[in-house]
């Protein structure tokens, strides 16, 4: 019997050169983030907190940011859980299906558009006030303040939670539903024994994610905050940088922001659940349970779904009613509108493409290195870093880093594209990474056995098989970039504007009609951009 010493292969021989590109990219991401953080740390001075701005001010801003983010996350969850259960029970009903299908919409919707829509419904001159006044009652108080911020955060994040929770409910084995039906469990017992254990697993991660989104909320607080008492760290950084020209204070606040976000990202890494990014499986048949069709349960479900539909669709309706009409005609005659629209589309397409390309490269490297038995935590951290380093922190770091060597306002388009790409990267990565790992599991042996390798495998197997996810990731990244108002707030000028920034400025000039018209156009552009990516990807899949 011949002794056969195993040939020692390097990790790169097993994982391939594609993995090397991913590792190099992760290294670049690390370097960029650390350069921005180092620039912030060097610019931070203790003297920043003297001269009118006390330490108490920073504590107050930090405390309020934490408070509103926590409250927003909890409120969103409290809204999302009953809606998810009702959607799941009524999965054959058109309104439940519609809700889950459009639940992505508030997530990709530009926050400036969301704020405009919410003002149209809940503002002092909004729909609800109009109805109240028609009945001789007093109008609603101004929406601006903590209430408005919370309402907007629930509007944007409850649908995201609904998406994840219905995904968790879809993961319950059919046999459990059948058993509960055979045992005659009531809705409460079923919730306790079957539904709650399934959704409980995803709640910590979900809360952490939404907390992070609300903690780094910028444009909503800027538009709905209503004054210095309702301000977050993000808005304070922006104010310090653009209005007070207090660079050390901006850097100090950014460090505070970064520290807290890093902690939340760590929590997020510990609690991993079904991806919010995946498409919920509401089409898997779930046998109807005993008692589901009883009148009280049906009535409660109907009421919950109707209220949630109102929460989601009324602001959109308000936008359409106020925005479509003579104001659109007026807006499309502004030269600034065309400049802003072109800038927005160019930046969105560029950062969407780059984010998807980087996410794909990193996901590929992660999959190949996992197959080669190499730890991949470094790749995950390189991406998650950009959840902690929010757009405003990154932008401030880049601002400080580059201002000595270049004209940052001249470089604004490239910087905005880069920052938007980095902010969208964790989301695009999350969409692609899971799918690629699954494909490797089912395709590796088959492809190796059939000799389908390298470019051939990428072109004919991997890319077509992943086309829906690639389309979704690039659509999502482009839509997020199109709606961004954070980075442009730092680098924007009269010469360089985007649509969200133009919308904000129009609203700040109290031109509500034109602002609503701009919001409608921005919303339509977002939807066109998002769906066109998905449709092109499907076409590619068909070949």
């Amino acid at each position, binding site marked *: *019997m*011949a*002794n*056969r010493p*195993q*040939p020692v292969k390097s990790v790169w021989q097993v994982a391939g050169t594609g993995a090397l590109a991913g590792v190099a990219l992760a290294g670049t991401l690390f370097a960029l983030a650390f350069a921005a953080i180092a620039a912030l740390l060097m610019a931070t001075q203790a003297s920043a907190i003297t001269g009118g701005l006390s330490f108490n001010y920073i504590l107050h801003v930090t405390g309020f940011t934490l408070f509103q983010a926590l409250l927003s996350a909890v409120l969103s969850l409290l809204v999302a859980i009953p809606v998810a259960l009702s959607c799941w029970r009524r999965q054959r009903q058109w309104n439940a299906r519609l809700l889950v299908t459009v639940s992505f919409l508030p997530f990709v919707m530009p926050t400036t558009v969301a704020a405009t829509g919410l003002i149209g419904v809940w503002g002092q001159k909004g729909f609800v006030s109009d109805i109240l006044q028609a009945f001789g009652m007093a109008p609603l108080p101004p929406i601006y303040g903590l209430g408005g911020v919370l309402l907007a955060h629930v509007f944007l994040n409850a649908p995201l939670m609904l998406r994840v929770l219905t995904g968790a409910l879809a993961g319950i084995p059919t046999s459990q539903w059948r058993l509960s039906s055979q045992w005659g469990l009531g809705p409460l017992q079923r919730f306790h024994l079957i539904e709650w254990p399934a959704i409980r697993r995803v709640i910590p991660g979900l809360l952490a994610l939404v907390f992070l989104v609300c903690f780094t909320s910028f444009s909503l607080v800027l538009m709905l905050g209503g004054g210095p008492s309702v301000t977050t760290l993000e808005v304070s950084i922006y104010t310090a940088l653009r209005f007070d020209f207090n660079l050390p204070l901006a850097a100090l606040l950014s460090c505070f922001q970064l520290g807290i976000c890093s902690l939340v990202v760590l929590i997020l890494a510990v609690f991993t659940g079904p991806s919010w990014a995946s498409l919920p499986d509401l089409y898997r048949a779930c046998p109807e349970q005993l008692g589901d069709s009883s009148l009280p349960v049906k009535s409660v479900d109907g009421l919950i779904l109707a209220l949630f539909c109102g929460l989601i669709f009324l602001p959109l309706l308000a936008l359409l009613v106020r925005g479509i009409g003579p104001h659109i005609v007026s807006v499309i005659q502004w030269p600034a509108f065309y400049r802003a629209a072109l800038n927005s589309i160019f930046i969105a397409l560029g950062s969407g493409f780059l984010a998807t390309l980087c996410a794909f490269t990193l996901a590929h490297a992660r999959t190949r290195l996992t197959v080669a038995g190499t730890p991949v935590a470094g790749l995950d951290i390189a991406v998650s870093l950009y959840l902690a380093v929010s757009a405003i922190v990154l932008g401030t770091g880049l601002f400080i880093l580059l201002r000595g060597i270049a004209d940052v306002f001249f470089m604004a388009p490239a910087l905005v594209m880069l920052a938007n790409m980095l902010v969208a990267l964790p989301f695009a990565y999350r969409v692609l990474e899971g799918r690629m790992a699954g494909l490797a599991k*089912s*395709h590796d*042996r*088959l492809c*190796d*056995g*059939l*000799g*389908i*390798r390298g470019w*051939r495998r990428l072109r*004919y*197997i991997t890319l*077509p*098989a992943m*086309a829906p996810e690639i389309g979704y990731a690039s659509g999502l990244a482009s839509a997020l970039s199109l709606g961004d108002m954070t980075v442009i707030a730092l680098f924007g000028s009269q010469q360089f504007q985007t649509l969200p920034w133009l919308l904000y400025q129009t609203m700040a000039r109290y031109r509500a009609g034109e602002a609503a018209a701009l919001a409608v156009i921005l919303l339509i552009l977002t939807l066109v951009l998002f769906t066109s990516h998905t449709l092109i990807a499907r076409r590619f*899949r068909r*070949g």
Partner: protein
Amino acid sequence: MLEVKNIYFQRENQHEFTYDFTLEAGAILAVQGPSGVGKTTLLDLIAGFEAPQRGGIAWHGQDFTSLPPWERPITTVFQNDNLFAHLTCRQNIEIALPSSFKDPQAVDEGFRQLGIDGLQNRLPAEISGGQQQRVALVRALLRDKPVLLLDESFSALDWPTRQGCFDALQSLAKDRAMAVLIVSHDERDSTYLDCERLALTI
């Protein structure tokens, strides 16, 4: 002739496996034994998905133990997941054929031989599990490799369909002088094929 010469293989903290046998070209060998005895491991070693710690595998005297799976004279039909979900049945076959293969009618002929004519342009999700396995078998036969490994490939088929596949397999193995290893749990398979048996034990 396929030679499996004193192969020794052990995964970390698991059973150790040894194999030693030969199989003539044109012959069929049924690998049998209870679960966990190493039937699939044997096929993985021959196909190159696992590397043995000792011993060698050769075809007509040429050792190919150190070759990667795609350079071996082997083609495999797995128990499931043999087809790419986004490709039609015809594309699933054509993608695995060398670019020099210029006989589109041979693909149709293969479909006819295995009783699945008309499914060429369907997606895998649009046909049954049994039909998917037969598409995979058409591909394996058209790849024209001298050794065919079948890992419980037909266990999902009903008995009459399975008999049809075995008939096609027997005649093709003989015509093309292929060595066929078939892993099966069902005694009826080896009885029907009237082939050699390799009984593995722990």
